[in-house]
């Protein structure tokens, strides 16, 4: 059988090392993906919760600011009324 040339030995060592590194890199990147995916799911959950909160607050604001409530508070609690026309002045067109 013909013998391997002596110069190939370092190449084999190098390639084996490369193989090991790439194998570890695969493991690392898989881990990264898992972490990233977990984060994504967290963020999606967070987005859902924030949207939930946003619409709840939106509805709340509009319930508090409903015109009939404003009118009621203005007239009953604060004793306000629409100014009589004789008291108003048009100051600009």
């Amino acid at each position, binding site marked *: 059988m013909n013998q391997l040339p002596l110069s190939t030995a370092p190449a084999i060592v190098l390639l084996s090392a490369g193989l090991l590194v790439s194998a570890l890199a695969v493991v690392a990147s898989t881990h990264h993906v898992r972490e990233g*995916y977990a984060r994504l799911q967290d963020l999606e959950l967070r987005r859902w919760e924030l949207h939930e909160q946003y*619409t709840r607050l*939106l509805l709340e604001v*509009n319930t508090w600011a*409903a*015109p009939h409530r404003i009118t009621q508070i203005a007239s009953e609690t604060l004793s306000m009324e629409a100014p009589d026309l004789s008291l*108003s*002045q048009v*100051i600009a*067109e």
Partner: protein
Amino acid sequence: MTRAKQAYRLPRWRFAVICCALAALAATLMGRLVLLQVTDGGQGAVFLREQGALRTVRTAEIPVYRGLIEDRNGTPLAVSSPVVSLWANPQQLKDSPRLDDLAARLSLDAVALRDKLRFYGDKQFMYLARHQTPDFARQVLRENFPGVRGEREYRRYYPAGEVTAQLLGLTNVDGRGIAGVELAFEDWLQGIPGKKRFIKDLHGDAVRDFGVIEEPRPGKALALSLDLRLQYAQHRELQRAMRETGATAGSAITLDAWTGEVLAVSNYPVFNPNSRDALDFSGARNRALTDAYEPGSTIKTLTLVAALESGQFHIDSIIDTAPGRIRVGAKMLHDPRDYGEISVSKVIEKSSQVGVTKIAQAVGHAAILDVLYRFGLGESTGTGFPGERAGQLPELARWSDIEKVTLAFGYGLTATPIQLARAYAILANGGVRRPLTLLRQNPNSLPAGQQVIDPEVARDVLEVLDRVTEPGGTATLAQVPGFSVGGKTGTVHKVGVGGYLDDQYVALFVGVAPMSAPRYVTAILIDQPRGDHYGGGLAAAPVYSRITEEVLRIRNSQPDQSDRGALLAASGGGQ
């Protein structure tokens, strides 16, 4: 040793045969492996991968929210809010010892729940409680009842409740529009759910996500032409009028004549769109658009248009209405009293039957009918609202004498309140007819209008309408402090068994304001007001006045009648 060897020597071929057989077996296995793993012949690699995926990979829908509906100022009118629907796998849940506990938690009847689980016993999906608040659903899910899971959905809320209920309409439990604006603009509001793929485990929970295959596309927001403040004010005044008159139904609608936008529309009876338990469909109807009535005297304004167009009359022409009654065919038409010789303008101000009859006979029914067509009666207004009616104009082969005349009073045809408002909006807009819309318009890019009458005629008619609300007219109660307004009343006998009913009326008022720059048209319809105040001038005109006061204030119109306001406006503003 050698002897024994010699005594029994295996034939060489047997060794060869065994080797070949073993090699063949190995080759078969290898071949099969290659077939299954590498090539794709029938039941090869692809087939297997598909079958594997079928058993583990699931495609899930990513829920999307429906577009927001807002008013012209951006106030939300319909909001989709996240909720959680609780469902169960009956196969896992039905024999659970914690069923009573679960039923109590969800306020369900335990017996009914058991029945339902038995009914769906061989299925894998059953709703337990839809549209629960997320907080509550989370608490229930945390208790880990067997087979109970949550599904994210959206639910529609209407912050203004009954005030905007009939216009906005409703969505069904799956978030599809089924009435009103929700239905009319379904394609715009509806989002397209996304899709994602994931691997599920034994319990159906996701263990690995392959990512999104279709991005979810949420629904688009819709800006209506409605002004919520104005809508509230109109709603309040209409409800108040309903209480005061004891009427069975009513409608009010306000238009911006310059742009064709519907600013507010309310009806009675009402319903609460946020509670589906006691949904009454008579309250769900947007009567201002869907119910056609005989418009009565409000049509006399259009008869006046025909009269002025004919060239036979101007607003100051004199008509002799003595002796206060006139015979048409077999029927006698009466005025409340003998007005004697009065101008065409006075005929409208007093709503004189005799005067209008004489005008109608002079200009002919064909000319009046033509005006009604041009003012859009018998034709949809273009809002696209589901269920909007177009009313009816008479299509008779032969017209009797009385039919030719009653057309001029607004009998024998039907129109919806929005159609009446549109007809008056054409007058306010200088004779230009615009399609009406429920959506906010860009004032710089309005759809083209159509000049249907001469602007001079429109101006003359508005001048007469202005006088109707002045002392001596039929609608002094329609006046608004500080502003000049114009309009026309109508009092119509309702049709019942055996013809027109003597004691049941529909009161109408259609008005335009402010007269210095006519822009806002409001139509009021009150169905069956009780008591003595049943007429358009007494039942409907005050409602018009109160609503228009709010319209002019909210829309920042400049007073044109108060002494000081007029003075300052004329001098180009104060300090």
